[in-house]
């Protein structure tokens, strides 16, 4: 939806916070023990801070519901989620194609089709960036990148 996102989202966030806090408190007391053998158990710190989340979240909820002040809103921009979709795609590409091909294709596709650069500029930048990533992370710092599902077939 493109448009004004109102305080409904604020309330949804607060409800999620309350649920998380309740789960942490329940698990902390029942499973990990708040206090055992005369000293704090594994649930001690989580229960205290989950209770803090709960109290603060309820206070925010009350404020949101009863506040007479005009609610602030922001415009939802679908473009903001392009990098997220690209990152997910990039993650899958690494698993399938391995790092070298992925970094090259990822940068090329983005630059050519999203940023609309010329093929020459796209290819030069992509090659340079691929060399940078491979040189620094793989060769110098020896990060063992996955080879890619496709290359493992051969």
């Amino acid at each position, binding site marked *: 939806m493109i448009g004004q996102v109102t305080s409904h989202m604020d309330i949804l966030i607060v409800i999620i916070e309350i649920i998380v806090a309740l789960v942490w408190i329940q698990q902390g007391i029942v499973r990990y023990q708040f206090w055992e053998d005369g000293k704090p158990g594994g649930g001690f710190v989580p229960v205290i801070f989950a209770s803090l989340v709960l109290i603060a979240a309820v206070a*925010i909820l009350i404020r949101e519901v009863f506040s007479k002040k005009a609610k602030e809103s922001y415009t939802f921009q679908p*473009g903001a989620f392009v990098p997220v979709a690209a990152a*997910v795609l990039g993650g899958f590409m690494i698993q399938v194609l391995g790092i070298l091909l992925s970094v090259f294709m990822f940068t090329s596709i983005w630059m050519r089709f999203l940023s609309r650069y010329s093929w020459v500029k796209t290819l030069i930048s992509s090659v340079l960036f691929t060399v940078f*990533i491979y040189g620094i992370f793989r060769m110098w710092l020896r990060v063992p990148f996955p080879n890619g599902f496709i290359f493992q077939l051969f």
Partner: protein
Amino acid sequence: MGNFDLLMQGFGTSLTFANVLLAIAGGFMGLFVGAMPGIGAVTGVALLLPLTFKMDPTSAIIMLAGIYYGNMYGGAYSAILLNIPGDSPAVMTALDGYPMSRKGRGGKALFAANISSFIGGTVGIITLTLFGPLLAKVGLKFGPAEIAALILLALTSIGWLLGEDPLKGIVASALGILISTIGMDTMAGGVGRYTFGSVNLLSGFSFIPLVIGMFGLPQVMELMAKKEEGESLTSGKRLTLKESLLDKGELKRILPTALKSSVLGNFVGFLPGAGGTTGSFLAYVLEKKTGKNSKEMGSGAIEGVAASESANNAAAVGAFAPLLTLGIPGSGTTAVLLGGLMMWGLQPGPLLFIQQTDFVWGLISSMYIGNVACILAGLVMIPFLMSILKIPRGIIAPMIVFVCIVGAYSVNNNMFDVWFMIGAGVVAYVMQKHKYPIAPILLAFVLAPRFEQAIRRAFSISNGSARIFIEKPISAALLAATAIFIFAPVVMKLVRRIRTK
């Protein structure tokens, strides 16, 4: 022989042309690796440590000092340029450094970071030279109860000071603590906690994917959302290299802040287990509370960069006092460094300053060389770093996204961290849009395990009695400060209301 004479003797052996070159080379490499998102100081030092294996001990220690300092300096660069802190103390640097970059003042932020790091490092080394063994003894007075109280003070102030809404700040900090509780509970013999049956969650979430996700990805999301606003990372007029040099007024602004923060950061560094993150955070809080430009902080104040960077570097040196005299590393990086130094014959302990004078003063003198080498290397790198800001958005955006992916992957070499990083990015973006501050989540995430360990140890020592926190004067004073910190704004508000009525 006095400390000064011993130091001069140390310089006598370490100050050769070849060693200075090695220090500069170590500084460059440390800066570069420290600035790489996903690598961080601990991994950086560990990765570069083997380079020193074939050297003679003096040269090896000098190069190690350069690498160590370089890492400390470098953590700030990606925080300032890309809003991706290279290490945890740089989270505070990003708060003002990145807004400065967005306003076209990235070069000034880089200069301020370098100069403040140098000041922090220098104050730290001088203090270590003069009072190292003495301060290590003071640090020993900080047991679990005192450390817990100190971190509680830091944790309490996070929520109140960062962001527009204190309630949302509290929620953010507490959520950071809850995230940190996922994984093995080491104090309960390695039992899994809040893993909900997932094997991937057994080792908990790593800091690097979290910080890359919460700072780096939302940054690109924001860039893509505001497509119409400018072409590069910065908005408004971009300063040239010459214009980016700090003028007299700016130097006057950062000097007192850097000095004050260095002293505080250095002291926190001396405390075993407190670390540079606590130091840089407390220095930032102090500046926000007492500084002249406190209102500007968080939106691009040069003092914010100075406070964080000077305290971080001073704490990094401070950590050497417990490391050398007690064998207690103050951070993960110093733990790796300790391994390297022990390989060269260091035997940490209370008698180190008496029995191994040559070694210890050689090491301290190499810190001076390393610090000078790093500021030189840092200043040389600024023009190159500034050119990153000129890269058009259409080119830099896919590169940042891919560096985020590779950075997250390289921490544990698994894709789970990549998916977690993306998820953290989306959550952070939505939270930011709804006025939740993000920095408290990260800071609480870093500080919480130390806090939990300290508080549970304190209770174990006292057989479950909370009196241990009140009976000890240091922890009692810190708890009182925490209480004042929490209640002072509320009381002040009430007083103001009563007065206006």
